[in-house]
């Protein structure tokens, strides 16, 4: 790589050392997250337990690690990676630096689904909340696709119909909440995002969908740079822009819907993390998508550690942490790098 640079005088478009560093970051943050909490666990013993070596954790400590902290950290990592990657992809597809994963009505649809599950009197649908919110999100996005019609020719029409569908779903959700005032608190808590429900069952099913979506998105990530140009330019560079847009939006929506149904609405990750990575690396190329996924995962694992420990033994909603830390950090990056305005 060095020889190439000195020959052409051009800096590389993506430095893969950054990706390797972000892998290391996720590993360190992950170990920190499962070590700390109201009860601190021995770091060496954690490693021994995870790798199946003798002299690992036993008894309650082992249960705490395996059944509580590990699934929770994994779910945070999966959701963080899903939201950050989807945000970055939506920003490219819609050529809008402020696009976030909830843009096409996924958040409002999931919110409505969750509200239906929580407010349903008589039937115990609370355990089905993830399924309700998942289908709520998918249904809302499909409705946006259906209404826009012109999606293939004009991404902005999809964006606008997403906003309309989102507003409608939010209105129905508010109506249902007003009719069932006892459900206000659980719905509100879900809207702020929560990882307290994490268990191996949720981790297993959400990892299937999220990993499939991430593999698809990272596979097409290099070509996504073509969507930053006009459709004719992208076509002339060997891309079918319509097909690529559909693949990207469907995969990003699958990741978002899964994330939101597993953990509620966790804001800011989808906007902050992509811009943070772009700001630090001075690169907007989607070759950085894997790095964005890894940093998103680390960000949410760290945010969850904060949510669990800052007011210990009480817990803060994770959405509060992501917004509290994310918003000022985002503004600093924005001001320094002038990414949006330039």
């Amino acid at each position, binding site marked *: 790589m060095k020889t190439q640079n000195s020959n052409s005088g051009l800096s590389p478009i993506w430095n893969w050392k950054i990706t390797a560093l972000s892998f290391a970051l996720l590993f360190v943050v992950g170990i920190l997250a499962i070590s700390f909490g109201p009860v601190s666990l021995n770091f060496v013993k954690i490693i021994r337990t995870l790798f199946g070596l003798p002299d690992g954790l036993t008894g309650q400590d082992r249960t705490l690690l395996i059944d509580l902290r590990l699934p929770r950290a994994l779910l945070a990592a999966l959701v963080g990676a899903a939201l950050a990657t989807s945000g970055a992809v939506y920003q490219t597809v819609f050529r809008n630096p402020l696009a976030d994963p909830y843009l096409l009505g996924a958040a409002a649809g999931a919110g409505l689904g969750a509200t239906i599950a929580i407010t349903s009197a008589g039937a115990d649908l609370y355990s089905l909340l993830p399924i309700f919110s998942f289908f709520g999100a998918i249904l809302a996005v499909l409705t946006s696709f259906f209404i826009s019609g012109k999606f293939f020719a004009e991404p902005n029409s999809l964006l606008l119909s997403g906003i309309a569908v989102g507003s409608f779903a939010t209105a129905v959700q508010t109506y249902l909440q007003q009719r069932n005032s006892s459900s206000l608190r659980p719905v509100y808590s879900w809207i702020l995002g929560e990882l307290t429900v994490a268990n191996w069952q949720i981790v297993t099913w959400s990892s299937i969908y999220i990993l499939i979506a991430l593999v698809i998105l990272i596979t097409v990530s290099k070509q996504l740079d073509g969507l930053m140009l006009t459709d004719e*330019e992208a076509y002339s*560079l060997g891309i079918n822009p319509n097909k690529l847009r559909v693949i990207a939006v469907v995969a990003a929506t699958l990741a978002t819907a899964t994330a939101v149904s597993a953990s509620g609405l966790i804001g800011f990750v989808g906007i902050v993390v992509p811009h943070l990575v772009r700001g630090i690396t001075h690169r907007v190329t989607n070759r950085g998508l894997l790095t964005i996924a890894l940093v998103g995962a680390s960000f949410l694992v760290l945010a969850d550690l904060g949510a669990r420990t800052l007011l210990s033994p009480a817990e803060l909603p994770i959405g509060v942490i992501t917004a509290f830390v994310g918003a000022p950090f985002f503004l600093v990056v924005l001001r320094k790098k002038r990414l949006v305005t330039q």
Partner: protein
Amino acid sequence: MIKVEDLNVRLGHRNVLKDINVEIEDGKWTCLVGPNGAGKTTFLKALLGSQPYSGSICDSGVEVFRNHDRNVAFVPQHPQIPIGMSVSEYVMLGRSKRDGWGNESNKSRNLVADILGLTGLFGMQNQYVSQLSGGEMQRALIARALVQEPTLILLDEPTSALDLHHQIAVLNNIELLKERGVTIVSTMHDITLAAMYAEKIVVMQEGKVLLHGTSEFVIHSPELKAAFENRINVFTLESGRPVIVAKKDLGN
């Protein structure tokens, strides 16, 4: 040779291109002229292969629609400017088709550096494309087309919104492509400049080709005036170079 036969394009309920029959010669610069709404840009998109059409457009005997085997560069009138992308990254995108996306070769990197120098952009390679002036952006677009090493380049109004100095600089850059044997098809609103640089001119009006031929033939043809509803005057300078200007009584 690109052979266009009975080309028709419908957009919604409108026939944007109607029964077009022309031949575009390899290695020559062909310019599409005509008033706004004549269908010039749609014709370029059809030549690119991205615009559905009826009739036939054969490039070296092969139908162009959705044929990704060709290497055609496209320079739009209103490019989408990627926020936060550097000039070198932007120009490097031109190598994506040859090298595969994200796999630029050592040769490509050297070529991009050479072309940046040739188009006067070296030194600006780390600037954001969004920070470039209109003339610099146009040169970045041409640089990207040059590194693509295309057989055909389609340019939509490459000199619009540029001052005269930058118009000449950009047109000279396009001539670099011609020197490399590339076939050039452009639209241009300035017919004087079209006559100066292009070998062939196609005059379009309301989706139809009114006349086509060598620049000299077209410029002195009465149909050219008809295409602009007799609102232009053609003068010939002492050097023999034609100058086309709008009549003052426009609108009367």
